[in-house]
Every structure is written in C-alpha cells, then in structure tokens.
C-alpha cells in the first residue's frame, strides 16, 4: 500500500509539473465561474418555473436568430418546463410550418404547427447560409448547445470534477451564463470577456429589461442569463431527472449486491485455512 501511495504521488507530481509548464497564455482569458444550479449534484432536478422563464427568454430573444430543433410536445414534459397540453397546442399553432409533403396540386404549402412538429427555423434566417451571410457565422442550433460547450478545467481540477459530491457537470450552463454576462466593454458590442479571443460574432443579444417576466422575478440580465442557460441545459439533456432518479436506486442496489458478495466470498474462502 505504501509503495502504491508513493507511486500515485509521483504520478500526480509529474502531471502537476507538466500542467504548470503548459499552463501559460490563459492570462487575459478568464474561465466561466461555477454557478449553482438546481439540476446539479446527486439529486438535482430542473426547476420548472425557471425553465418556463428560460423558454420565454429563448422565444422572445434567442429565437430571432437561433434555431431550437426540438418538438413542441417536449415542452409538456413533466420533468421539463411542464406546460399544459393546451398551452403547447396553442404555442405550436402560433407557428407556420412548411409541410413535408406537397398538397394534391403538387404545391408546397404552410400550415399551423402541431405539438409533434419541430420548432421551425427563425423567420429571418430560413437556413444557416442566410444567417452566416448576416453575421459572418451561422448562429448554432440551440438544442444541444449546453452539451456542445465546455472549457478546459486543467489538472488537477478535471479529476475532482468526476468525483462524488463535487461532480461538476454543468460547464455548458456556466459557459452560456458567462457569455451572456461577458459583454463588459461599453462601445464594443462584439467584445466578450469569456469568448476565446474576445471577438464574438453575436452582438450583445440581451440587456436588463428586455424580457418582461410575469412571475415577479426581476427583469435583470443576470436572471435572463441564468434562466436561459437552465432552459438550454434541459433542451440538451431532457432525461436528466429520470437518469438521476434511476441512478440512485441502481447505486443502492449495487452497493447491497457488492456487500453481500463480499460477505459470501469471505465465508467461502474462510473454509480454506
């Protein structure tokens, strides 16, 4: 055991030396700060009211440029925003969808959306080329955005991130929150403290008061950023609640199984000596 400890220590020191030697050039590139989220940790679940606020921010602001390729029906997900069936139906109907098949005259036509439809692309940018022409870069589809953004944590932090009780899995949400709060240079709408290289194609999208919340939450940029980051986390990982619930039962079962197997093993081997 002693030898093992020494070896592990030696490995850790080697790695730490290497990471110190490599960890330069991060001077003026701050890393997003870790925020507290309702869906982090062993028993984390999404906060329904927060997801609804986040959706409101998406719908009123982000959706002008960003697509969200999820079906309307998922907004009724009881582990998600949990809108009522009627609300989802009304929401879907407020969109005009290009029908997949032409009508019997052979014409492509538009119709009102149904809950089974996927959110259509923004009116202004029906395809990513149109958006790229306007911004120099196409605004990404937001359905997986929270999973598609991470940042380097560096040694030894990335080790702790995997361990129980620390379990840092919300980097995507922190990144989105940080970017929305990162427009700190007045007079330059495309300067962002957290974007690599500080030059971001998206001009500051949202400021205090841009969205009127109906549940009394202050209409502040900080809340918008937090709520929309939570909503996008749900959009990219809608099964998180179920996963953690099942996971806890699986863990209890496996620990019990391992203990019983250990006792059986001890018993069987004790007959040997």
């Amino acid at each position, binding site marked *: 055991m002693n030898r093992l400890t020494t070896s592990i220590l030696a490995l850790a020191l080697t790695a730490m030396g290497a990471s110190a030697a490599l960890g330069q050039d991060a001077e003026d590139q701050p890393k997003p700060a870790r925020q507290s989220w309702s869906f982090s940790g062993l028993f984390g679940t999404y906060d329904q009211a927060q997801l609804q606020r986040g959706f409101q921010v998406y719908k009123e602001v982000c959706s002008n440029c960003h697509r969200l390729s999820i079906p309307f029906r998922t907004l009724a997900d009881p582990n998600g925003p949990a809108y009522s069936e009627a609300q989802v139906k009304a929401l879907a109907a407020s969109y005009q969808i290009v029908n997949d098949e032409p009508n019997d005259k052979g014409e492509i036509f538009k119709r009102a959306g149904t809950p089974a439809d996927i959110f259509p692309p923004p009116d202004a940018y029906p395809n990513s080329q149109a958006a790229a022409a306007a911004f120099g870069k196409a605004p990404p589809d937001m359905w997986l955005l929270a999973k*598609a953004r*991470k940042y380097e944590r560096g040694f030894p932090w990335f080790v702790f991130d995997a361990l129980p009780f620390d379990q840092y*899995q919300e980097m995507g949400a922190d990144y989105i929150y940080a970017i929305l709060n990162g427009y700190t240079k007045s007079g330059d709408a495309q300067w962002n403290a957290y974007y690599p290289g500080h030059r971001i194609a998206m001009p500051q999208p949202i400021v205090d008061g841009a969205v009127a919340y109906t549940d009394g939450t202050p209409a502040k940029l900080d809340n918008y950023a937090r709520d929309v980051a939570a909503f996008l986390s749900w959009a990219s990982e809608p099964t998180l609640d179920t*996963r953690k619930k099942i996971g806890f039962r699986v*863990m209890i079962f496996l620990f019990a*199984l391992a203990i019983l*197997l250990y006792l059986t093993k001890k018993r069987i081997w004790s007959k040997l000596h």
Partner: protein
Amino acid sequence: MSGTPSYVPKSAIGKWFESRLPIMGLVHSSFVAFPVPRNLNYLWTFGAILAFMLGAQIVTGVILAMHYVPSATEAFASVEHIMRDVNFGWLIRYLHTNGASMFFFAVYVHMFRGIYYGSYKAPREVLWILGVIIYLLMMATAFMGYVLPWGSMSFAGATVITNLFTAIPLVGTGVAHWLWGGYAVGDPTLNRFFSLHYLLPFMIAGVVGLHIWALHVSGQNNPEGVEVKDVERDTVAFTPYATIKDLFGVSVFLIVYAWFVFYIPTYLLDADNSVQANPLVTPAHIVPEWYLLPFYAILRAIPNKLVGVVALGAAIVLLAFLPWLDTSSVKSGKYRPVFRVFFWLFVACCVGLGYLGSQEVSDTATLIARILALGYFGFLLVVLPLLGVFEKTKPLPASIADAVLAKTKPAEAVAPPASH
C-alpha cells in the same frame, strides 16, 4: 487441463449427450474444476470484468444498432432520437459510450498487471500475444464506434486517423481513398465503419475464446510468479473460490461504471461531438478519446509524418514482443527491486503522454512528449533486456503455498532456520 474428464454426468440423458458432444465436461473442467493459484489478488478479477464488459458492449450495441441510421445526413439526429425518444435509449447509449471507456480502463489494468507480474513469460507467450491482438481489435472497434455519431470530433478523428495511411510511400494516397470509399471521409466511410464496428466485437469474442483456451493450457500466473508445483497445496478450484471473488470484483466495478452512466455521463465525451459533423468546420483542438491519447502524443512528438506513424505502430506492436524483450527469468515484480522502479516510471510515461496528448501543441509540450516517448521505448527496448542481465533479484519462495503461509504466519514460516 481440460484433458482429464472431471465431469461425470449423472442422468441418462446427460450421459447420452456427453458421449456425443462433451460440452458440459468442457465447461466443468474450464470453469468449475479448473485449478486456480490460491494467492491471486484482486487485480486478477479484471479478466472476468473484461469478459463482462465485452458482453455488455455487444448487448447494448445490438440494441443501439436497431435505432441508429448510418448516414451522413441522419446519423447525428438518429443518435439524438435514441437519447430523447427511444424508451430508455439514453440509458443504453450512455452504457455503451461509457462502457467503451470502462472496457479500456479494465484492459489497461489487466495489461499493466500482466507486465508487473511478468505474466507474458514462458509458458504464456501465446496467451499474451492473443491479448495484444484483442487490444488492437479493441482500438479499431472503439475508433470506428467513435465515428458513428457523426459529431464534429467523430469526423475530425476519422480524418486524422485515416490520413495516417497517406504517410505510406507511393501507395499511401491510394490506400486512403480506398479506405474512404471516395476522396474524403464521407457517407461511404461512415457506412463501412458501421459495418466493421458491428463485425469486430465478434472477432474480439473469438480471440477471447482463444485467449481463455491458452490460459487454461498454461494455467494462471500469480503474484509470486512461481509456477504451481502441487495442485493440492497451491491451488483452489475455480468454482466456488475464483467465481465468487470475480463476481465481487465485477460488482465493485459496476459501481464505478454506474457512477459514470448515471451521474457524469458526458464527463468523458468531447463537447465538440455534440455538434454535427461539417466537413468545412474543423474543431479548434482535435483530441482522440482518452484511451488513445498516449499514442496520439507519440505521433505528434515526431516531426516527420512517416516516422511518427511508424513510432505509433511500434509503440503497440512492441508489446507483442515483451516475452522476449524481458530477459529476466524471474516473473513477478515483487522479487525484482530495480524492475519495480522502472515499471512505475513506465506507467508515469504512459500517463504523462496521455496528458500531453490532450493538450494543445506547444514547444514545451512537444519537448516533454519526446522525453516521455523516449522513456516509453527505452523501457521496452533497453531497460527490460538489460535488467535480465544486471538486476539482482530477491530469492523466490519455494512454492505458492509457502508464500501464502509466510504471509499468514510470519513467525514460523520465514523459510527454514538458518544453518549453523
């Protein structure tokens, strides 16, 4: 070991069947009566863990293949369809992606255990080489599986790895075009990777069969590295002793596996793979999965592409020659004080290379990677051959039973009393 018929069927139908196909006798002699050294530690449960992981990967993979669409335009969306719309699809997919990592984690423990205890030495050379073949097949399978979701890192990885073949003089470009089924990684590449990703696991299963067969001919090595002398004193029956110990090992391993699947399922996934592949947009920082990082670091450490590819191949192929590179007649690192130090340095080189493989290229990183790559090859090509000549090893125990008894009753059993 399977020659002696230890199994006697009791029922008439059992006798009738056994005289026509003695499969129950084979199972009995291999997994029930098979003698196992009594001093095996928990590192030896990783064989069973690996067998379990192969089964788990095949079962989850077969289910995923029922819902996955191997098409450049639909693959990415079909994976998200599995994650969102298929009942428990998220569970099956997370079991499979994290299962690949758990499989490699277990195989690395298994391999380093083999090196530390000299398990590749006579009479287990063929057993070891079969293991290296399994490892190669695993890498090919994992690489092709990683391409299937058609994320941007999948695409970049497929491009980087298949481009290695262009380093071959004269025919390189032709070989690469042949692998791609076109002039770049595209739809035909994805389809053949899917086909091979489904085929290779069954080839692995076949070689695993040979691996276990070879194991049952030579018997298991053990922490003392001395061969079984007296089956009565030195060994125990596979069932129940090894079976229950393996089951306990698997159950502990499952706890770690479940932790990844249920609580940190995307920890090992690259964020760029949640962006659909786009041949026009390459990720800023191309990295393979963690289990291939040391080899990636060796590849990048060498400025010449062809030499780099050769070094990458040699880093793996040399492992097959370990039985002859290691000239020491003593198997276990327990009795090799100098080997032990170099062994841990070798492990440190592998881990260090892995870390560097994940970092962006810089002068310092390349320099350190070169030193560590020298350490990697130095261990295999210089240290191991020389240690056999110069190392002063510790005295070996007379038998496995003696070593076990010395541990439990140190007062009486520290070898015979010194002569006067």
